[in-house]
């Protein structure tokens, strides 16, 4: 194995390819956090009173909360007063009505990222909402979707146009006092995506949000709210990148999904935040709360995530299975290399009868990466005949990395069936030699073996993104294994 490790170490020089910085004139609120800053954010966005009240309530609660320390990740303390909580490209200040009024630099940024926003270049079959630092800059296919009654826009726009929906659903899945980072987000969130699919409508395109952190010393606190009304279906994808910087940047998002009776939401993430350099300097702290509520009977929520970026990832996309016969799924790949740390997994809470959940997690660790799966399967007393199947596999690429698995299971109903399978393996010298003897380079062999290892998860992604995710794994591996 020593040889594979040495060999692979050679690729570490690979650079993060999305690390460029865009120069745009920005409207940035000075660093620091207090009630005035929160009022300023709310005022900049022209928010209704109820939202400001919620922000302040969350902030006052956050002040008395203690930063969580239970995960395996280590980092130096975050200076919450050293962050600017709002940064927006200036040209957007008066909300451009048309896309060509968006700062061309920002549009160019998205082009470079492979996310064209201009009408004539839009991605076929994918509606995109692009979030640049604190604001949404463009949403494609909006009109076409509106004709079907599907509301897909930035969160700020939703607050202005559909305040009743926002007021009704915001915070119903992740309350303002849920956890330290969720409370912070509830106080200072700036933008994000909003989607509402009316009863019986099957959304014909993939909805997608692309998050980009550009400004320095800025946190990104986006808020996403997706509501699938009775019998509807929507598939949603989230992608993210950030420039290379020596300092750490905080990303503390909250995503709430609500599926009513017979509705289905599929949510996929390809997370590629800047992971820091080879020595572990810089990179995004990705502390995210994602939760879905299967509110109605026979509703379904599925999370699929491919995590290759961030210096630290701390997130557990979860499903609350409240409706009878509801189904929750989690499929995750987490790759940590260099000095990256990931503490990620899921929570499945079975409340309704005959609820089912499936968890498939694939953790890959290389370099000095530390990869932790942490999962909770909770079956409440009333969840008759509920079932869970969990499979956690870890693949080690070298001998200085680590994989850890913490599955928690709490069952309060005798009729429940909970299964857990786990494996840990090391990429084998035999496998590598076999591939090489067939003419593949060692790099290609590693990437092929890793892709094979993740296949169950990758094939759960929408087609276009499966290809993107595979490429991303390949690229991330180039700079990693050893």
């Amino acid at each position: 194995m020593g040889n594979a490790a040495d060999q692979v170490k050679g690729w570490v020089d690979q650079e993060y390819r999305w690390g460029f910085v865009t120069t745009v004139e920005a409207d940035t609120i000075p660093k620091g956090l207090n009630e005035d800053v929160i009022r300023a954010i709310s005022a900049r966005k022209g928010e209704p009173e109820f939202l400001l009240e919620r922000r302040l309530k969350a902030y006052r609660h956050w002040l008395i909360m203690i930063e969580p320390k239970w995960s395996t990740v280590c980092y130096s303390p975050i200076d919450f007063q050293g962050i600017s909580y709002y940064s927006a490209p200036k040209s957007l200040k008066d909300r451009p009505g048309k896309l060509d009024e968006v700062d061309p630099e920002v549009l160019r940024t998205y082009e470079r990222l492979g996310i064209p926003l201009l009408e004539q270049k839009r991605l076929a079959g994918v509606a995109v909402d692009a979030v640049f630092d604190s604001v949404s800059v463009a949403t494609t296919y909006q009109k076409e979707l509106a004709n079907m009654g599907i509301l897909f826009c930035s969160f700020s726009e939703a607050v202005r146009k559909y305040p009743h929906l926002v007021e009704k659903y915001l915070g119903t899945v992740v309350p303002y006092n849920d956890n330290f980072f969720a409370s912070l987000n509830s106080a200072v969130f700036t933008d994000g995506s909003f989607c509402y699919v009316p009863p019986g409508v099957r959304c014909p395109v993939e909805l997608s949000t692309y998050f980009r952190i550009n400004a320095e010393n800025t946190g990104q606190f986006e808020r996403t709210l997706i509501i699938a009304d009775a019998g509807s279906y929507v598939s949603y994808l989230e992608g993210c990148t950030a420039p290379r910087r020596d300092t750490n940047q905080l990303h503390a998002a909250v995503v709430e999904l609500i599926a009513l009776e017979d509705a289905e939401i599929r949510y996929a993430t390809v997370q590629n935040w800047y992971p820091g350099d080879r020595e572990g300097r810089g990179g995004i702290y990705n502390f995210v709360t994602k939760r879905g509520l299967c509110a109605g009977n026979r509703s379904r929520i599925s999370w699929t995530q491919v995590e290759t970026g961030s210096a630290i990832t701390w997130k557990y996309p979860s499903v609350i299975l409240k409706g009878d016969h509801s189904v929750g799924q989690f499929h995750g790949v987490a790759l940590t290399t260099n000095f990256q740390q990931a503490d990620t997994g899921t929570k499945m809470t079975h409340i309704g009868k005959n609820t089912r959940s499936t968890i498939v997690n694939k953790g890959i660790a290389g370099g000095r990466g530390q990869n932790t799966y942490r999962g909770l399967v909770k079956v409440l007393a009333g969840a008759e005949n509920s079932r869970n199947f969990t499979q956690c596999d870890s693949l080690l690429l070298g001998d200085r990395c680590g994989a850890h698995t913490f599955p928690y299971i709490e069952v309060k109903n005798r009729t429940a069936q909970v299964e857990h399978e786990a494996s840990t393996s090391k990429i084998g010298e035999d496998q590598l030699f076999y591939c090489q003897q067939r003419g593949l380079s060692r790099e290609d062999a590693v990437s092929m073996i890793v892709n094979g290892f993740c296949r169950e998860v990758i094939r759960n992604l929408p087609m276009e993104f499966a290809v993107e995710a595979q490429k991303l794994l390949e690229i991330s591996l180039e700079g990693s294994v050893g």
Partner: protein
Amino acid sequence: MSGNPMLSIENLHAAIDGKPILRGVNLSVRAGEVHAIMGPNGSGKSTLANVVAGRERYEVRAGSVRYEGRDLLSMPPEERAKEGIFLAFQHPVEIPGVTNLSFLKAALNAVRKHRGLQELDVVEFRGMVLERIRLVEMDEELLLRAVNDGFSGGEKKRNEILQLAVLEPKLAILDETDSGLDIDALKVVAKGVNRLRSPERGIIVVTHYQRLLNYIVPDFVHVLSEGQIVRSGGRELALELEERGYGWVHAPDTANGGEARP
């Protein structure tokens, strides 16, 4: 069967985990020839096959191996593969999640690219594989399964020969391809190999038993014992071995024309 040897091994010494296995092997293989390497367990047959293929676990301590006039030992394993050396593994490796078909395609395209040929498109590639798979009478369904994952012993060996047929190497080394095969499977595998015999291709068959050589008839037979080739001959040597066992050839000092001991 003339001209310069394709492969020439001189005084090869190799060790694994510090333990010497090969102690001065000499062997020449020309295009078009089929050589059988026989010998008891532990004599170094598989070591020889793996050293030629470039497995890093084996440490070459002395000697040289030239392939088409080049120093083979300085080439990394994938380079050797792309230059036309193929090893059919004694224990083919499983690669979960990677389909047999995509693995074959990646391998073939790597080799073709190296030879300056265009990569095959999906249709051409499928056509070729479906034609070659008939050679080894392998179930097409196995193409869509993960590489060797859950394959029976016989299926794995057929799969190796399928790869051989698709990659069309110049020098094929079959490492105990007969081990674990029943007689029917053995015949199928041998038939496949025989179809791949050609004046341009050298084949080395490594085997413990002469049984396989009833079906793949070699031009030369070499007996390896304690890390040296102690006897070389034609096909009749294999038959004699079967009759008399390895006991009569095991000592290297009887190798060069010495009288065989009972």
